[in-house]
């Protein structure tokens, strides 16, 4: 069974500071990987997806970037945080069988002050 580990669990950061969130997937080779963001009380917003190492597609522009340095790793980052970046960041993995059932990590809760 695949496991999705997200780090850190929670962050409190200052406006203008850099950010790096990580996600590691075990138990599934060459997964499709996704970053989602959820404002407090809000809906799921897809940010990025990647179907292979080194290739990342952006879905929405939120002053964030993503990279996939390894097959099992997905990184979300920014050099300058905004207040609007606060929320819940979710990494998801899927792929195979044409249905792409997504399985989510536990998430990282980010507060920007």
């Amino acid at each position, binding site marked *: 069974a695949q496991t999705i580990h997200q780090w850190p669990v929670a962050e409190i950061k200052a406006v203008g500071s850099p950010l790096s969130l990580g996600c590691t997937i075990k138990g599934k080779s060459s997964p499709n990987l996704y970053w989602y963001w959820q404002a407090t009380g809000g809906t799921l917003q*897809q940010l990025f997806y990647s179907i292979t190492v080194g290739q990342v597609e952006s879905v929405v522009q939120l002053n964030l970037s993503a990279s996939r340095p390894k097959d099992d790793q997905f990184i979300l980052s920014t050099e300058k945080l905004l207040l609007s970046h606060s929320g819940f960041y979710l990494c998801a993995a899927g792929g195979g069988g044409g*249905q792409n059932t997504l399985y989510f990590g536990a998430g990282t809760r980010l507060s920007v002050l």
Partner: protein
Amino acid sequence: GDSVTQTEGLVTLTEGLPVMLNCTYQTIYSNPFLFWYVQHLNESPRLLLKSFTDNKRTEHQGFHATLHKSSSSFHLQKSSAQLSDSALYYCALSDQNYAQGLTFGLGTRVSVFP
């Protein structure tokens, strides 16, 4: 493009009563996969059930849904709501471009009261 519509933003009900959450979708793909995810407070979304077979009932943990391609619907139902069913429920769609990810509805928040 694809879209998923969940008409209720908030559903409140008393424990023991039935619940139905509406989900309709739009896609040009003739064989979509439909999903229901549930997200409890301070947790991440978890797959509740899924289907791609027309007119076949899918069940899990007391919930059920049937994909009806004729009406582009995938409504979620439960005969007797429990307090623990209070959560956010998302309907989602996958088409032939599944690698790009799922198309999610806006979600329906369910609050069950004693």
